[in-house]
């Protein structure tokens, strides 16, 4: 079992990750607000707002996947595994996650190559290298592997299934 101190550290990191996620979401929201205000109040649309919003959107999704949304909170099919006895349940859950982690692990070098290659190209308006705009995807891929490993080692409470907020 993990010690108290490392649990406290994990909690503090999770809180910071949440704050950063909130910040990125605020950037997404504000760039759209600026877009509307520039066009209607000043009659001068800015080209960068749409691009910043698109980058922030990519970051919100993969920052969340990497650092703020635990695996069991994602949308999942919940009517097969709970029918088994607790031990079988743990084994089946771990098996699925092992395959998931294996696939992502396999793809990591290819993803890294792609991002390195995209360092040569820049976004049209802000001229940000795509390798930076997209870098959060790599973080998410690594974190999926680590999260799977952690969930196999320390399974989340099987009684609490992941029901998430969505459309």
């Amino acid at each position: 079992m993990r010690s108290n101190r490392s649990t406290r550290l994990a909690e503090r990191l999770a809180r910071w990750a949440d704050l950063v996620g909130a910040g990125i979401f605020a950037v997404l929201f504000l760039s759209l607000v600026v877009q509307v205000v520039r066009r209607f109040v000043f009659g001068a649309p800015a080209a960068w707002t749409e691009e910043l919003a698109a980058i922030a959107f990519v970051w919100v999704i993969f920052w969340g996947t990497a650092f703020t949304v635990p695996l069991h909170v994602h949308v999942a099919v919940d009517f097969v595994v709970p029918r088994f006895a607790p031990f079988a349940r743990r084994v089946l859950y771990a098996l699925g996650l092992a395959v998931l982690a294996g696939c992502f692990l396999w793809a990591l070098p290819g993803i890294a190559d792609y991002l390195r290659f995209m360092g040569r190209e820049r976004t049209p308006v802000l001229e940000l290298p795509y390798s930076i705009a997209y870098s959060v995807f790599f973080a998410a891929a690594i974190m999926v592997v680590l999260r799977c490993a952690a969930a196999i080692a320390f399974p989340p409470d099987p009684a609490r299934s992941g029901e998430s907020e969505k459309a």
Partner: protein
Amino acid sequence: MSAAFGLMLAVFVGIALLRGPIGLAMIAGGIAYLAVTGQDMGLAAEQILNSLFGSFVLIAVPMFIFAANVMNAGTLSERIYALAHAFMGRFRGGLAQVNVLASVIFSGMSGSAIADAVGPGMVEIEMMSKDGRYPRAFAVAVSAASATIGPIIPPSIPMVLYALVSGASVGALFLGGVVPGLLMAAAMMLVIVWTARRRNFPMEAPVPWAEIPGIFIRTLLPLLMPVVLLGGIYSGVFTPTEAAAVAALYALVLALFVYRALDWKGLVSVLADSARSTAVVGIIICGAFIFNYVLATEQIPARIADGFASLDLGPLAFLLVVNLLFLVLGCLLDTTTLLLVMVPLLLPVAKALGVDLVHFGVVIVVNMMIGLLTPPYGVLLFVLSGLAGVPVKDIVRELLPFIAALIAVLFLITFVPSLVLALPELAGYFRP
């Protein structure tokens, strides 16, 4: 179908059935496909990232999520409840009717059924089950059923997703949902009239007419939100994405400055919540991008179109088959996955048969909202069962008449396309 495609399906279905996250399971399936066919693994990243970066309309989704979270953190649900109560409380089974009417009003501001259920839905459950006036399971069932109106009356997150895969106009889809949404409300109100008589549900003391203008004024500012939102889209002033951001801004100004129901700390937590929900929906969208890339490579949609063509169905028979198929799939899969993976497979058939894509979209979304109520995978059931502490089994028993009523409306709008298309046509939409 190639062996590689079979492997992709096996990886996806395998991980998903073992309770792995669905969105990540789709990406893993795509990776397995690329690996076996000897393609560059970077393609997985490229497909996902470039599609996300290029789909500006998708950014409406996080904005609608944010707007709904702001409204639920403010006192909006209570205000809407008070207004609906003033009108409907006086009838037999009045509080249940209030529940449906409040959902209709709220759905003009929110595009998500879950937001409707956890906001006004929970307020109404508490009011209905206070002093044991209504069986709690019945209260939960009414809240769950009426929450399905949320994404039918505009705005609507599922319809934005449908617009993304079909290329149909978001504005036309939104308007197309108005009449079906009102029909759903009417059907549920009839079920309540029938149940209230049979089980002798109570009436509320009528609110004096003199008090109604005051209650209306307290709700006036939130009621203006649909006007801003839809007026902006239909006058061509805003894109749907901008309109969603303006709606969120409007809700934020009301909650922060007018009602002072939200402080800065609350705002940060609403932002963090919205970011997490966006990631949850977004990762399924990403999985669908890579899945659809593989489906296109394997020419699966064309094969399905050929398969349907050989069945020689007319447009109506096709819609009927699709409805039955989705009612079953809706019990097993979630809305976003169905919309982004199954619907693109059927679109070429719909086009070939001359089915109007706006009509098709509204029918599909109504169908999927029924899927939110049907076990074993009924998200509204789980959420409300958890929040209200009522077993799913009891809710389902009370839900059955409502589900029957919703299915009746579904078939009505399937057979009478004008119920969907008349309003968009008034606003200038042409059937191709």
